[in-house]
């Protein structure tokens, strides 16, 4: 049976590893920023941020 050659970009094992590491680094950075912005919001606005607006 004839096999069709894969078209497009084929990453090497090293590139795949680097991509996984990049994804992990971006994920950690986003998680860190989410926590940081949450804490900053509490610090700047205070606990009143949780009170419903009347």
């Amino acid at each position: 049976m004839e096999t069709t050659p894969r078209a497009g970009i084929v990453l090497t094992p090293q590139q795949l590893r680097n991509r996984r590491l990049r994804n992990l680094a971006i994920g950690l950075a986003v998680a860190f920023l989410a926590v940081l912005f949450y804490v900053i919001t509490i610090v700047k606005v205070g606990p009143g941020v949780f009170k419903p607006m009347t």
Partner: protein
Amino acid sequence: MIEGAGAADGMKRQNWDGMSLVGHESSEASAVVSAEYAAGPKEFVSLLKPRVMSLVVLTALAGMTIAPGSVHPVVGFASLLAIAVGAGAAGALNMWWDADIDVLMARTRLRAVPSGAIAPNEALYFGLFLAGFSVLVLAVVANFLAAALLAFTIFFYVVIYTMWLKRSTPQNIVIGGAAGALPPVVGCAAVSGSLTLDSLWLFALIFIWTPPHFWALALVKSGDYARAGVPMMPNVKGADRTRLEILVYSALLAPLGLAPWLSGAAGSLYAAAAIVLGAALLVLAARVYRVRTGPEANKTAMRLFAFTILYLFVLFGLLVVERGLGLFTRWGL
């Protein structure tokens, strides 16, 4: 499209070919490898120039500690992080623009863009995103003045220094030094919301520190700069003139080091260090002026270069330590 990106792309292709990598445009091939997907986090971190960043963090922190008023530690940390990332973004944009000359210099040819680890456009978008993000975060976390100053710092470093002055005048690092001198002003503004005289003294200190620091290195690496066509002082005015200017700037810097103490921003520990380090700086600069030939000339220049880094780290470190650890005293005052 930003002007210059096309030229950088041409350079990129040349490098990739040298590394047996093929751009993804020729996607009809069955196994196309693209350098745009080759870099790991380490290479992207290197784009931020971590060593320069550490100096920016320290000087910005010093600006924050001498600022009138105070901020919550979390706000202070976030502001410092934004300043550091902004400086890193400027470094990434500098590497994107300078890839064509970095590849010609031994000192810089292994950087992420000229070595082909990161594609020029990746460096450009990475730098632009971080620059915008850091300014936005500083505006939200601290205030608009600090954010505007950070934006101006990035603009000055990338556009005024990197794109214009660096390749056009031997005064490139003198004027461009303003960008490196601004972080304490940004740090101070982040805390106080204003420009203070004390932070401007720190600006002046780094501004005058920059020429002896870079020209000491340029004396040794003049061949590199000549190959790349960068008009550094030794290449344009000669090594002797550079040595004289190093001595003059060092003579200005030594007394200027005491300015934060005289203005009341620094304590006696800082003053003692400024006197000792200022004297040592003058001795080393005088030695660079005197020793002009042979391998000893390069050694003395590199010794001065290394010492200038120590000089700035110790003085700004003491500014932080004096306030942070409660060691701020004013002997006899």
